[in-house]
């Protein structure tokens, strides 16, 4: 299988590459539109800030490329947020694949820590991306912004409020957590993504 990871100015790309290696798959990290377009599957990772990342993608016309992709695409963390319509992080217009809005966690008296950092449950799991994954499994999260609930929600998590920890529309999938850092659960989800039919 021909797998590409979109290279842009965001962190954690190496971690995703290594996680793929652990399940026995090699991938090409690239920002070459031709390579991305012709690959069987695409991973859109990311740890970073939304407006800087969007500006970088636009400069290289990667924004138009991503929305035009027809093969299975998996956005991770910031990657998933950038696939939404708009992010409250520096009031950024994003790719608009998912209608859901990305909002900022607001600390409450009960939950005072933002960003969320650590292991939390994923539930209300839908689609083949979560094949063989039990409800309330634990995934690793690090994020200060979240996608609200909507028609594309395929997983939910509670932190301050219930939000979308997974999104899906057509060939596009996104997860807010880090499968590459989520132990066996993450490896299962990566393998499920790799098994999706193009």
């Amino acid at each position, binding site marked *: 299988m021909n797998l590409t990871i979109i290279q842009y100015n965001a962190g954690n790309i190496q971690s995703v590459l290594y996680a793929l290696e*652990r399940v026995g798959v090699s991938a090409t990290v690239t920002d070459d539109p031709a390579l991305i377009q012709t690959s069987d599957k695409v991973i859109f990772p990311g740890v970073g800030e939304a407006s800087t990342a969007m500006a970088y993608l636009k400069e290289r016309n990667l924004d138009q490329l991503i929305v035009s992709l027809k093969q299975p695409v998996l956005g991770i963390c910031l990657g998933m947020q950038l696939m939404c319509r708009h992010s409250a992080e520096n009031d950024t217009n994003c790719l608009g694949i998912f209608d859901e809005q990305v909002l900022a966690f607001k600390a409450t008296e009960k939950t005072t820590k933002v960003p969320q950092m*650590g292991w939390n449950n994923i539930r209300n799991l839908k689609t083949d991306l979560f094949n063989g994954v039990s409800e309330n499994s634990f995934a690793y999260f690090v994020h200060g912004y979240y996608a609200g609930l909507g028609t594309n929600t395929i997983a939910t998590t509670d932190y301050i409020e219930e939000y979308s920890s997974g999104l899906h529309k057509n060939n596009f999938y996104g997860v807010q957590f880090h499968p590459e850092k989520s132990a066996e659960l993450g490896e299962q989800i990566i393998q499920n993504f790799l098994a999706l039919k193009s």
Partner: protein
Amino acid sequence: MLTKRIIACLDIKDGRTVKGVNFEQIRDAGDPIELGAFYASQGVDELVFLDITATIEGRKTLSALVNKIAHRINIPFTVGGGIKTEEDVRVLLQNGADKISINTAAFLDPSIISRFAKQFGSQCIVLAIDAKCEADNQWYVYLNGGRTKTDKLVVDWAIEAVGLGVGEILLTSMNHDGTKQGFALDITAQLAENLPVPVIASGGGGTAAHFYDVFTKGKADAALAASIFHYKELAIPELKQYLNQKGVAIRI
């Protein structure tokens, strides 16, 4: 529900773990990669690799080691020890570390915190504080691995550092470290309740009940231990089962 985290710390010198007895399940407990992978398979939530190598030559091997760890380990890990410059941070993150921890260098030049946070994001900057409670019943910051006392109060330093962009605090009580008599509950709770970032408690964990106390009375977001795991005095699966049965949110 966001769970409390159990963190195992491995001290590294010249590419080898300093503490660590043999586990039947692994070939070489002196190999940080083998030991880290073992703890990950046991269900530990995170790992910290603390490099105590003094020589420049030895430090060069650290980035290669971090790269090997990143290939093997499927949970988040932090690397600390002697980090001073943006280049130090960049090399470690590029080789796959999820977070880096800083201590003395940040105290001597707090501007590095804001520079690191701006360039790499607060989520990957952990501030380690070595704290000691003195005769006046106040907690003071110590530097250089606990050898140098400062006049700065721990709470003041933590608040200042979070303001500059630190994403997490790793608090080690020198009074409790190595005693196995329990964590420093008062100062841990004081930081955990007043800071908008997670607090990792370290030093003094000897029994499962100590971990229960630091998560409940101490309000810690995470608890770190080294030798009790290395010397098999407390196994991670049993610790997590105990906490789960006591109603603490934990990943099992």
